[in-house]
């Protein structure tokens, strides 16, 4: 099957890279277990497509090794790696029918026509394409075409991993749902390793069991959607995951805890002691908008904020407030009372994260 391992893997498009900035992928060690559903999540330019192409064999890494089940495959082309790849825009053979498109990989491997027929019908059934099997592929809608692309990967018995490069980009939002569901069902049914590249955290979270968040050519955190959400390791993860992202405030240490713009936030003794030992001046606190407590009346330990903006997003609202000179966002449920001009907020300590030099510290103390 396919356990995919990356050993000291790095990649530069330059012939003689001089510094970190010349690397599209910085040195990484990583294992993708067999049968897992993974997402590579990150903003454009973070290196996720490069990594995907290295795994699939469309790109040879300039340094390090890629191993499939313990065997180094760096120089093996995609055909020999037992993988299938689905691209951003549907890649189909225009001149063939849907049936022939799905049969294509099998026929190339000279498989008996009877087996081809049964396999194609089986996959077409799963992907709900059986009604269009005899239509010319180029007349299908975008989502049907993507399903055909996926289908070509699924018909092959020897495929142990499927890689997806932002496959839902051209699909209408109403249909993205159906395809995501389909992908998840396929994963449960086929026990394949699936790696999904995207810049959309919702897509990544709904598809993957574990997400590798990439930033600047590195995997910054690898965890379940819940872990990434509740315990972001790095300020970038806090910022990128969640809509809107984590509130991040630059602070200085004080006797009672931390402060910014003259506003003091108390911390537990354990945390204060930990911060006292930290030499760096780059200290930030972070709290997700979902965890900020908001009242519309003054409260004992609440900080008074000025309400700047209320965004009504149907199922929830986003409240943008000003505390001192900083902007704080909070996410309110649909039926939560909305403060008008002044709001009173507090930061529950268990959700207040401390970041030193962008990395999370002191989790064990909470």
């Amino acid at each position, binding site marked *: 099957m396919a356990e995919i391992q990356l050993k000291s893997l790095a990649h530069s498009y330059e012939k003689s890279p001089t510094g970190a900035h010349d690397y599209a992928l910085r040195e990484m060690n990583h294992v993708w277990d067999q049968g897992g559903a993974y997402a590579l999540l990150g903003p454009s330019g973070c290196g996720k497509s490069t990594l995907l192409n290295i795994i699939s064999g469309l790109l040879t890494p300039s340094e390090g090794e890629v191993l499939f089940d313990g065997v180094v495959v760096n120089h093996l082309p995609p055909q020999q790696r037992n993988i299938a790849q689905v691209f951003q825009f549907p890649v189909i053979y225009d001149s063939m029918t849907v049936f022939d498109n799905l049969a294509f990989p099998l026929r190339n491997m000279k498989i008996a026509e009877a087996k081809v027929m049964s396999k194609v019908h089986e996959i077409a059934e799963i992907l709900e394409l059986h009604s269009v099997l005899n239509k010319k592929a180029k007349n299908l809608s975008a989502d049907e075409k993507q399903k055909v692309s996926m289908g070509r990967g699924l018909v092959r018995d020897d495929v142990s991993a499927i890689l997806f490069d932002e496959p839902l980009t051209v699909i209408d939002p109403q249909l993205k749902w159906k395809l995501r569901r389909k992908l998840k069902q396929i994963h449960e049914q086929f026990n394949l390793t699936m790696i999904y590249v995207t810049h959309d955290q919702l897509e990544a979270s709904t598809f993957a069991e574990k997400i590798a968040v990439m930033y600047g050519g590195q995997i910054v955190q690898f965890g379940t959607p819940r872990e990434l959400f509740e315990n972001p390791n790095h300020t970038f993860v806090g910022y990128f995951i969640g809509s809107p992202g984590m509130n991040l405030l630059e602070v200085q240490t004080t006797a009672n805890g931390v402060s910014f713009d003259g506003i003091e936030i108390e911390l537990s003794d354990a945390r204060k002691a930990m911060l006292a030992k930290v030499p760096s001046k780059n200290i930030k606190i972070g709290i997700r908008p*979902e965890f900020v407590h908001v009242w519309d009346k003054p409260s004992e330990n609440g900080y008074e904020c000025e309400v700047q903006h209320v965004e009504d997003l*149907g199922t929830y609202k986003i409240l943008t407030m000003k505390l001192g000179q900083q902007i704080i966002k909070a996410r309110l449920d649909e039926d939560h009372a909305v403060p008008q001009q002044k709001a009173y907020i507090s930061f529950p300590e268990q959700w207040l994260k401390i970041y030193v030099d962008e990395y999370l510290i002191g989790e064990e103390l909470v």
Partner: protein
Amino acid sequence: MSLKLENVDQVVNGQNHLTNVNLTLEPGSFNVLLGRTGAGKTSLMRLMAGLDKPTNGKIIMNGANVTGITVQKRNVSMVYQQFINYSNLTVRENIASPLRLAKASEAEINKRVMETADMLRITEFLHRYPLELSGGQQQRTAMARALVKDASLILFDEPLVNLDYKLREELRFELRELFKARNAIAVYATTEPNEALALGGTTTLLHEGRVIQSGPSAAVYREPVDVYAADLFSEPPINLIPGNVTDNEVTFDESVHFPLHQDLKSLTPGGYKFGIRPSHIGLVPDNDDDLELSMKVELAEISGSETFLHVKNDHFNLVMQLSGVHAYRSDATINIYLPVHKLFVFTLDGKMIQSPTRLIRG
């Protein structure tokens, strides 16, 4: 400046691209055109810009009939889905180009270019050429060029679709802020309901070339005028269940029966379509009179802060949007609760006759 479309039709090669469109856009307003691919959003914007002529109807800007007038004469700018820039000019020159055409002073050009570049966060790329930049950066250049001109009508045709979602979130907010201060009319086409809500302003729903509803975004969301509007303007899609009302009970899809709830008493007996938003169905009863249904879990899609649960019974499927993580295995059987007061009721031909009543818990 105001914009009005009166009885506009557009027929191209025998196909109706737009039918009977009547719209009034107020000065300084931010208008979202929400519809599926092919609904007519681009056609409509091209008519507003003057790139095409309507087959019938009038387009009126500031009281004057501009229907036949070419785009060069109307003070319009447009941002496209594909990043369109002058590839032989630097980013700075690209942004400056409309100002140069308008013969602005060098100082003025400098100031406006820097302002706009700052706002779209491309200041560090000013000296580079568009083809050297990433897709997102190219699109921001195109947007800067459109915004620097200070046109009275600015059209955006799904401009953020090719940008990563974080950038999209941030640019959306900045766009709104930007337009608060201007008197220009902004028209923004999108296929995503969440984007329409986030942008605020007014939303116009387009379906197969017709305007089915138009109004302040949150209001259109809460009170869809018919089934198409409800379906268009919700993500995940609104759950629809065919049902029947008699004098004393309600039946869903001829299978599930409930005693007639007081909120539904005003309905005359007959067939209806019931709608309920995914976020309004719960795993625990919120009210005594919630409808209890036994369903099988098809799939649980878990994101960090919420779970989308796909459930079904032998007759219909539902999608639920729950906060927090709820990891159910497929085929698990669970009970779900539908608050009756949050049901939408549509007639069989789709008109909305009842919408959720008590929304704030009270």
